[in-house]
């Protein structure tokens, strides 16, 4: 059981980051991460910890997505509303926000499997772990990742070019 404490210390950061990147919703990400560790608390033995945690988190996300797409739309609306209230005095913050928005779009443009593989890889999972978490064969991970990376960068650059054009016009 103290194992869970160790798990939490070791993996919480990476799990939240992964989920935040994947979901674009920090609150949701933290909830899922929390729930994942609660599951771990109930789990007697976990063989491959990292793969287990990410798999459970993925499943929780999938369940969430199935159940409450509507709720999330609501949250998105609330967030959008809130965005208008937030004062962003610093241009650097604004730029960062724009970058993040572009990145979000680019990531969302990826196929689900590609996106997940890439995000898992970014959290340091090795190919075996990614394969386990996504139910893919180890041999296909390289291809999946190369496709994901290429498409992400291309999408991002295309969006950036588009944003630049819009700014030029304005």
């Amino acid at each position, binding site marked *: *059981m*103290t194992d*869970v*404490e160790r798990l*939490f*210390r*070791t993996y*919480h*950061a*990476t799990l*939240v*980051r992964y989920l*935040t*990147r994947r979901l674009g919703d*920090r*609150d*949701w990400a*933290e*909830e899922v991460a*929390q*729930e994942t560790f*609660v*599951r771990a*608390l109930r789990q007697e033995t976990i063989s491959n910890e990292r793969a*287990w945690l990410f798999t*459970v988190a993925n*499943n*929780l996300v*999938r*369940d*969430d997505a199935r*159940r*409450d797409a509507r*709720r999330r739309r609501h*949250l998105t609306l*609330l*967030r959008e509303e*809130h965005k208008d209230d*937030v*004062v962003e005095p610093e241009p*650097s913050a604004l730029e*960062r*926000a724009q970058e*993040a928005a572009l*990145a979000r779009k680019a990531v969302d443009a990826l196929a689900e499997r590609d996106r997940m593989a890439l995000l898992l890889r*970014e959290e340091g999972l*090795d*190919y075996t772990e990614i394969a386990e978490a996504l139910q893919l064969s*180890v041999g296909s*991970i*390289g291809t999946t*990742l*190369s*496709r*994901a*990376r*290429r498409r*992400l*960068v291309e999408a*991002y650059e295309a969006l950036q070019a588009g944003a630049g054009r819009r700014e030029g016009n304005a």
Partner: protein
Amino acid sequence: MLENTAHVDEGTIHAWLDGALPPVERVAVEAHVAACAACAAAVAEARGLIAASARILSSLDDVPAGVIPNATPVSVERIMAAAAQPARAPAPAWTVRRYAPLAAAAVIVIVGSVVWKSAANRSVAMVVAPEAASPVAKSDVAATGGPSADAAPVTVAQPMIREPQARSPLSAPVDAGKLKEADIVPKPVVPSMRLATPPREASGGGRAGAAGYADATKDQRARGQLGAATGNATNSLMQRSAGAANIASNIASSDAEKKAPVDALAGKSSNAKLEELAKRSESAPARPATQLERRDESVAQSRQKASPAPSTAPLRTADEKQRAGGAAVSGVVLDGATGRPLEAANVSLSGTQQHASTNSVGEFFIAGVSPGTQMLTVQRIGFTAVTQSVEVTNERASSATISLSALATQPSGTTVASSVDSAAFGSASRAIEGLLLLSSATSQTTGSVVRRSIYEVRPGVQVTLVETRLLLADKASQARREQRPNRALAPSAPPPPGAVHSTGWTARDGSEMVLSGPLSVAELQTIRGRIP
């Protein structure tokens, strides 16, 4: 595998760069790339793609949390609760705090049976009445036609389907409380429904209002009761009763974790099965459509979403215990720092398999405990485990109030990429473009987590970045910070010697940032602009 003459495909290049190729293949790729200009170019491109996608993805981390206005507690609090202390929403009026008689005791403990008083006085009281157990036991035995303990897991599940309507009033309020859109749900319904049910249980001799699971384990209860009634209660019977109680509590809590794929994956097929059954029974009863919908929505938010309704699990377990005839231990787990109840703490009895989780108001209940001095161990994510002894007798209530303290502060000066780090800052140390990160240390106090990172601007010149993240989801202080987003903070440690300047601001994630060093303010602000 690969021949030196065959070009290397992109996937293999990525696998190679990711260090994921088996040795033989790796050597072949290395050899080929060294000799083939086209493939060398492809490798260079792949490196670029890897770096670029990592950079793009890292810009996703800057997502503000806690942005949902006026909702039920935002989940930052929950993570903070796990990391340090529970920051719960203001307790709804009808939580345990309102129940003056109960709260006065702070801890509920019963040996024997539990009787729920009428809801009329809006209080929940538990009365110790060991003798009351016998008639109950007899009625149970009569109803089942005799004990048959071996069928336990099966009988646990069946009543859930048979009597779903008995379950729904209990579980519905819990779920309603989880709603983010809590304001939409008519709240008065919640406590009244919840409080209305237990008296039925009591008056009905344990049959009328009993939730399905209670029936489920009646065989065990009956056995336990028979043993108690005849004065022949043995440890093994108690253990069995306790096992039943544990199963029951698992099921009772399963409405919050109807996530079969997870459990299937976790290899808990039997649990998954039980949960599946629970799920079916829950969706079966004809309930108002809106409630059903909201319920489904709320499930995803998970039960820890500061559901104001106390989880029914320990209460049912108490009911279970009523018929079990053994001693019991119950109590409440609190955060030592704030005195707030801690949910989802794991309470176990040393030397046994008996354990329980605390509900949303921090209560736990373990039934079928052998009399004597027992060691209770309480564990919770983000807290130091505590072991405490408790005297268990058959005569009187055994109770425990256990305070947990947040995990020990990390010694400063060391580089830690800890959960504290993660919980508060969402990532390991911040990389600042063009600066070398020398060290990063995170320390934690009651209300905040502070990360102090030292960067080298150029040889001999270092700047210190102090990030302070409040752990308490203190709305007032959040509001204050929002009003004064650029409030400069004094660094909490003496800055390095020399002409030191500092600049402070509030990061988008809510952290208070202070950058200080032997540089001009303008230089510091230049660096600040590069902080992701």
